[in-house]
């Protein structure tokens, strides 16, 4: 591929508040791991890599007084500020600049402080809606006011690496010229206790790849890179710092928290990155390993490295002995460390290492200075075997883009579990209409699909997600799609609540590891991959009401680029009784005259292979703010809108519809309710009616009693009036 320029970078971690401080610490082999200082927790025994600033310190440095904020968003703003400054983008509101950010913790620092308030009083209402991953990204985006699109990825410890991958795909596909990518994550009691329940925290300074290693030290931080086309960088007169020359993501499909002994997922991810970069293993001059210091990761990663590099293993080090494991931010924190290594010609030390482990790599223990590096590899692996690898190179000459014809992208099959009859299209002839403010999903007999043993730890959302995915894989005869992409606004909220509840009421001892493990957003995508033995691309979007739409965009771009031929796209959210009551009390859902608050799953198979299909997808666009539809929509027979009876919500749809005067309006939320993933159901319904070439009368907004013929349809969706998605579908 044509290398993508890196024209800016910013970083905040335990070893420094910017690039210059980070470089000094790396060159001097200084660890940022220390006893806990900022986080209030009973577990004082664990050393951590905290950012050496309180929330107030960070707000002062940023010059803001606003609330609500979250610690993750504050660290993110600091790193973003540096990245934008270094790329000469600060204040440039005339450019098309997108933001893709990874986090899993999101606003958990506030949720764990105020959880009991959320349940019982109105004291901390301002923070309720800062909980999710997307809210953290929006808090950051709002501060800078220059982004034209924003979305969030949550795949636990590979989140930021996967954000870099989407950014690169946005550029390669010609969608964007500049994308700011990375991730942010603060330490919380929630995941400190979660990792403790998994017994993978070291009580001492961590020692990646050492014989005596006994686990990881948690860290925190944020880092962002500015990815840019060579043409845009030239035009703006910005000097590239380096290039992103390759990247790959693959799924280990082995276990939800453990890596396989032979590191299959890691091996495949590194191999994909090399292939995309057009490089051979011997071209890599340094590998920044994931190297967490847990017994399992370091064995598995060593095997993957041995398999890929054989007897040509380049110098390897893990920098987590200095930064701690910055979890969702680690992909970009370590990418910026690799960038500094390339720019300043040194190999960072594997701090803490003394004694070689059995069958493991022998890392670089001391800093090696004065080394000319051309290509460096950066690994990040997350729960569920979500493995990503990036290759950064010195700014090289462009190899030239190979233009390929754009393939037609089909939705081959789609299904749902929602308030309607599950796994079928009965709703098109016999819709279930409901008047309650809160409706849970109508579930099929899960036992017909999943054995009690394999589903013993799965909450409702996981069972729904797996069964809809299995149905679509079965219907299409595609048991192992090239990509599995999930959207979820809140993730597995039931398990999150169970763990939070235990934490807040019973204290920080004897917490259930299952609740923690199942609380991560990527659980869904990884369960589907494990069930089907799918080693392909795997990722999860968590960006409020456009989570599903973001997942669809990701798959659409990769299909368009020809990187993949089949993609399973799913949208899943749940609405627990307690979460509903919080949202209803605070006036967000459940008022009279509004559609019901619901939970649902939608799954669909996208492919570029011709054959029988529901419809084709012509375009998927996300934007911050209402876009100009005339610029790309053309002539459509109908516009599918998400009216839900709330004035603020419906007004935005009216604004969108007004841009297409005379085009008949359809709606779907009276059938599928309102929830973070209802857009997945809306798109599912749109695809089904295009298959039939007509929309049932009960979906018409004008009250007409006839069916409406539809051959080309615009689906629009918005989240809080901020993020808007537009999807163009066509009948075959």
């Amino acid at each position, binding site marked *: 591929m044509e290398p993508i320029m890196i024209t800016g970078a910013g970083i905040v971690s335990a070893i420094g508040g910017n690039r210059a401080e980070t470089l000094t610490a790396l060159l001097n082999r200084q660890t940022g791991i220390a006893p806990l200082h900022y986080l209030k927790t009973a577990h004082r025994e664990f050393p951590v890599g905290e950012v050496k600033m309180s929330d107030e310190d960070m707000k002062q440095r940023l010059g803001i007084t606003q609330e609500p904020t979250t610690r993750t968003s504050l660290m993110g703003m600091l790193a973003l500020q540096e990245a934008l400054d270094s790329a000469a983008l600060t204040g440039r509101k005339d450019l098309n600049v997108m933001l893709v950010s990874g986090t899993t913790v999101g606003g958990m620092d506030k949720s764990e402080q105020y959880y009991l308030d959320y349940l019982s009083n109105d004291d901390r209402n301002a923070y309720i809606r800062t909980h999710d991953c997307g809210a953290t990204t929006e808090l950051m985006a709002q501060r800078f006011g220059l982004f034209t699109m924003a979305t969030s990825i949550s795949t636990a410890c590979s989140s930021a690496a996967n954000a870099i991958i989407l950014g690169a795909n946005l550029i390669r596909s010609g969608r964007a010229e500049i994308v700011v990518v990375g991730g942010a994550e603060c330490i919380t009691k929630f995941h400190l206790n979660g990792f403790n329940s998994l017994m993978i925290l070291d009580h001492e300074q961590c020692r990646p790849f050492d014989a005596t290693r006994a686990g990881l030290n948690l860290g925190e931080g944020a880092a962002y890179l500015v990815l840019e086309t060579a043409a845009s960088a030239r035009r703006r007169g910005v000097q590239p710092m380096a290039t992103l020359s390759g990247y790959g993501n693959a799924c280990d499909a082995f276990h939800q*928290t453990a890596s396989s002994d032979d590191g299959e997922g890691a091996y495949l991810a590194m191999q994909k990155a090399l292939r995309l970069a057009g490089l051979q293993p011997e071209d890599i001059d340094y590998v920044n390993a994931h190297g967490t210091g847990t017994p399992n990761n370091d064995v598995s990663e060593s095997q993957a490295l041995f398999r890929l590099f054989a007897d040509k293993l380049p110098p390897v080090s893990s920098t987590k002995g200095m930064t701690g494991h910055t979890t969702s931010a680690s992909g970009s924190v370590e990418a910026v460390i690799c960038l500094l290594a390339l720019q300043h010609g040194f190999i960072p030390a594997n701090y803490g290492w003394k004694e070689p482990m059995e069958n493991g790599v022998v890392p670089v223990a001391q800093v090696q200075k004065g080394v000319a590096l051309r290509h460096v590899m950066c690994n990040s692996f997350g729960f569920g075997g979500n493995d990503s690898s990036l290759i950064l190179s010195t700014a090289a000459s462009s190899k030239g883009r190979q233009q390929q014809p754009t393939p037609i992208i089909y939705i081959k099959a789609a299904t749902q579990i929602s308030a309607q009859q599950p796994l079928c299209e009965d709703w098109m002839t016999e819709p279930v209409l409901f008047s309650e403010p809160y409706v849970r999903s109508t579930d099929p007999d899960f036992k017909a699909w999943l054995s009690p043993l394999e589903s*013993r730890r799965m909450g409702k959302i996981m069972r729904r997600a797996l069964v809809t995915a299995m149905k679509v894989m079965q219907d299409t005869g595609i048991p192992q799609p090239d990509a599995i992409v999930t959207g979820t606004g809140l993730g597995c909220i039931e398990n999150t609540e169970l763990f939070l509840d235990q934490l807040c009421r019973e204290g920080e001892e*004897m917490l259930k*590891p*299952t609740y923690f493990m199942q609380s991560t957003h990527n659980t869904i995508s990884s369960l589907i991959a494990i069930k089907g033995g799918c080693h392909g691309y795997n990722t999860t979007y968590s960006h409020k009401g456009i989570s599903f739409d973001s997942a669809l965009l990701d798959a659409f771009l990769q299909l368009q680029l020809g990187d993949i031929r089949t993609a399973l796209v799913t949208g899943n959210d749940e609405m627990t009784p307690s979460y509903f009551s919080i949202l209803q009390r605070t006036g967000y859902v459940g008022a009279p005259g509004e559609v019901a608050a619901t939970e649902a799953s939608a799954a669909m198979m996208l492919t570029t292979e011709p054959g029988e299909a529901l419809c084709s997808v012509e375009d998927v666009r996300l934007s911050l703010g209402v876009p100009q539809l005339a610029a790309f929509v053309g002539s459509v027979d109908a516009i599918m809108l998400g009216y839900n009876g709330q004035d603020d919500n419906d007004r935005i749809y009216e604004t969108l519809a007004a841009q297409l005067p005379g085009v008949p309006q359809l709606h779907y939320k009276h059938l599928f309710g309102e929830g973070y993933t209802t857009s997945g159901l809306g798109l599912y319904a749109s695809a089904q009616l295009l298959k039939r070439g007509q929309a049932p009368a009960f979906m018409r907004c004008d009250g007409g009693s006839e069916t409406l013929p539809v051959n080309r349809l615009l689906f629009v969706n918005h989240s809080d009036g901020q993020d808007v998605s537009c999807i163009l579908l066509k009948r075959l």
Partner: protein
Amino acid sequence: MEELIIELKKQIIEVLNLEDVQPEDIENDAPLFGEGLGLDSIDALELIVMMEKVYGIKIKDPSAGKEIFKSINTMADFVSKNRTK
């Protein structure tokens, strides 16, 4: 010991949410992990929490679980020797 064995089986079924498994389905000598009942490393962590909660036994090394949770018999033996409640 017989009483403890039945109690352990009930605890395992409840803690690990083994729907459709009855205490009599679990043989005292059969392996709990891999073959046999088919449990995995997360189940082992759940059992470690259970040992502390129910019997007051704190297991600090996760790899120690391998020996202790080999079968119902080894668990019962360990509990009877180490329980503090």
